[in-house]
């Protein structure tokens, strides 16, 4: 079975500062990795994904994440955050099966951006 750990439940940061949201996963097989964002009262929106290839992946809204197989991590970064980035961020994994693959989520990190 797979599991995802997001060590930080909340991350406060000032606007225009850099941020890193941490994600570690556990799996005995290769996985796909995802970051989703949930704005207040909205559904989950895919930020970025890692399937294979380059370990640095770029997503929407200026976010990027780096896959580190040896450390089983997939940390999310943004060099300069904006107030509008305030949201809940979820890291997730799935096992590529070629058919419907469930997502296993972490507990989420609330990013709070202030002036």
């Amino acid at each position: 079975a797979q599991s995802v750990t997001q060590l930080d439940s909340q991350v406060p940061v000032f606007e225009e500062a850099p941020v890193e949201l941490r994600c570690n996963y556990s799996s005995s097989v290769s996985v796909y990795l995802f970051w989703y964002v949930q704005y207040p009262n909205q559904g989950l929106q895919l930020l970025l994904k890692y399937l294979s290839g380059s370990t640095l992946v770029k997503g929407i809204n200026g976010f990027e994440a780096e896959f580190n197989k040896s450390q089983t991590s997939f940390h999310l970064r943004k060099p300069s955050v904006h107030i509008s980035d305030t949201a809940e961020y979820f890291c997730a994994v799935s096992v590529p099966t070629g058919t419907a693959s469930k997502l296993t989520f972490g507990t989420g990190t609330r990013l709070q951006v202030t002036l």
Partner: protein
Amino acid sequence: EPEVTQTPSHQVTQMGQEVILRCVPISNHLYFYWYRQILGQKVEFLVSFYNNEISEKSEIFDDQFSVERPDGSNFTLKIRSTKLEDSAMYFCASSEAVRSYEQYFGPGTRLTVT
């Protein structure tokens, strides 16, 4: 841009009642999912559905739950004899055949059982 829609946005029901949560997946998608998020907890997988049958279900998805695709557009989650602990946000998601790993989520239905 196509999106997954869910109705109602908020459902209040009494314990023991049956509820049906409705979802309209993106039109060319073939894989459908339900997840739930109890307040303050993580998003949990309930069930996946493909070709008119359940592909996988979690331990949570017991006989109290059922899913159905009654026509070419809707995908429903039925919860029989609701319990207080069923109170949660329920998310529907869908994915296309070629990129089945990329799931698109609806805005959710908040179910409150009183």
